[in-house]
């Protein structure tokens, strides 16, 4: 298929979701991926489904995210995720057992109450519990928990399964996936975009750039300058144990997420920074972040002290300078769409659906104009693009 309707660049979860929604809609889709699918941010992320309002900052994050703004999109995502296994005909180890966001201090408890108001306003079911009430529901929580926000819709899925499931479903609807096919150039040919990988090329009226941290690099090939602020974060996995925890546990005061996955391992993360972001290879883990993340998780869930750490890894997070997602058509470049930013895992079904509607000339299910790429554009081609 050298003249598809849409060329998707980047086969992480957003590219895969876009390819699925578009292909299901009847568009002819080609997906180009420089390496193996799901290798970067989408394959290294925690896999959390954030439905209750998210914590505003990762450790080391300077710009807080506007949590309230994202809530309607999270609610929409919740609906999508409830149907996703049926829709894709795949088991992605989806868990919707609910989640706690804990507070240890009075100030943090106040934050829980504030966000509870946003959630109520947005129609997301949450309850603020006392520490004792939280411990009654999840006895593994320590006495350090002063209060907790409970949301029955929080959960997680297996990031290693969802992207392949999207891609397989996209393929069944006729999409083509070309892994190990790096994009080397993008040229305008009339109203179309010609996307080259070495001496191979594909031409289409629409390009969807879902290349995560490489959104900048890919856009630049088309003469479009989009500023991204990728960082590297890390995850920690324990050896497996029999099932003891069925909820996602997060922290309002600082990035933390702990959950037990289907296989039985405990995954501990929260956006702690890795030692550095290596765009060319594999980013390295940071020992202080490991110590900080595990100590924090152990304060809240002391049973973790009896487990063994099995794996750690670092992966890129395609953050934007204002920490809000980016989605939409690039002004001045009709047909060139971008989707990315943080919380991409949770919002993937929403972004795939949004892109599909926009490409079909329909309005998205929820307003997203304020999240368009226009705000990230800069004209000066000589401005350094690395963060």
């Amino acid at each position, binding site marked *: 298929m050298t003249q598809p309707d849409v060329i998707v660049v980047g086969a992480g979860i957003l590219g895969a979701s876009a390819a699925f929604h578009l292909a299901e809609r009847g568009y002819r889709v080609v997906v180009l991926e420089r390496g193996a699918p799901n290798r970067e941010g989408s394959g290294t992320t925690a896999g959390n489904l954030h439905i209750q309002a998210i914590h505003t900052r990762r450790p080391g994050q300077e710009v807080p995210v506007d949590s309230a703004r994202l809530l309607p999109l999270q609610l929409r995502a919740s609906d999508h995720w409830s149907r996703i296994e049926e829709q894709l005909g795949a088991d992605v180890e989806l868990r919707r057992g609910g989640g706690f966001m804990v507070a240890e201090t009075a100030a943090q408890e106040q934050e829980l109450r504030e966000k509870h108001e946003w959630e109520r306003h947005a129609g997301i079911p949450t309850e603020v519990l006392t520490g004792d009430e939280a411990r009654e529901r999840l006895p593994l929580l320590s006495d350090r928990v002063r209060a907790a926000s409970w949301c029955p819709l929080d959960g997680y899925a297996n990031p290693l399964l969802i992207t392949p499931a999207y891609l397989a479903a996209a393929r069944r609807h006729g999409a083509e996936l070309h892994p190990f096919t790096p994009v080397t150039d993008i040229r305008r040919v009339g109203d179309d975009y010609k996307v080259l990988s070495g001496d191979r090329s594909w031409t289409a009226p629409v390009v969807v750039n879902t290349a995560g941290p490489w959104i900048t690099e890919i856009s630049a090939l088309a003469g479009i300058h989009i500023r991204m602020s990728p960082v590297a974060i890390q995850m920690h996995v324990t050896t497996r144990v*029999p099932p003891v925890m069925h909820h996602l546990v997060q922290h309002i005061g600082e990035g933390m997420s702990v959950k037990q996955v289907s296989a039985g391992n405990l995954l501990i993360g929260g956006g702690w920074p890795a030692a550095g972001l290596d765009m060319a290879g594999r980013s390295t883990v940071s020992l202080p972040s490991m110590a900080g993340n595990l100590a924090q998780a152990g304060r809240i869930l002391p049973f973790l002290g009896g487990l063994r750490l099995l794996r750690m890894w670092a992966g890129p997070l395609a953050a934007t300078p204002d920490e809000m997602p980016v989605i939409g058509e690039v002004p001045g470049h009709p047909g060139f769409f971008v989707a990315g930013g943080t919380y991409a895992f949770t919002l993937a079904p929403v972004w795939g659906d949004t892109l599909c509607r926009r490409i079909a000339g329909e309005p998205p299910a929820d307003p997203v104009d304020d999240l368009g790429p226009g705000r990230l554009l800069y004209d000066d081609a000589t401005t350094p693009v690395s963060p």
Partner: protein
Amino acid sequence: MSAGKRVRPLPETVTVTIDGTPGQAWAGQSVTAVLVSAGIWSLRRNPVNGQLRGPFCGMGVCLECEVTIDGRPGSRSCTEHVTDGMDIRTATHG
């Protein structure tokens, strides 16, 4: 044993319990050796498929030989040595 050299005393014996059953071993033997001598090859079940598993690599790499020693789960029987009164528990049920 070296032939024609001076007679050495046999090693000191210790008593260990395996799944509640007392048994004798030579002090300093590996827990694997004691289990194998007692004819116990199945030590645990694989958490994925429930299959019985026992010692394999003998050097601490494969982690198939894990048993609970003196209340410590996940103890490698190939790298630990018996002591008097040691309590060894396999996990082959369920």
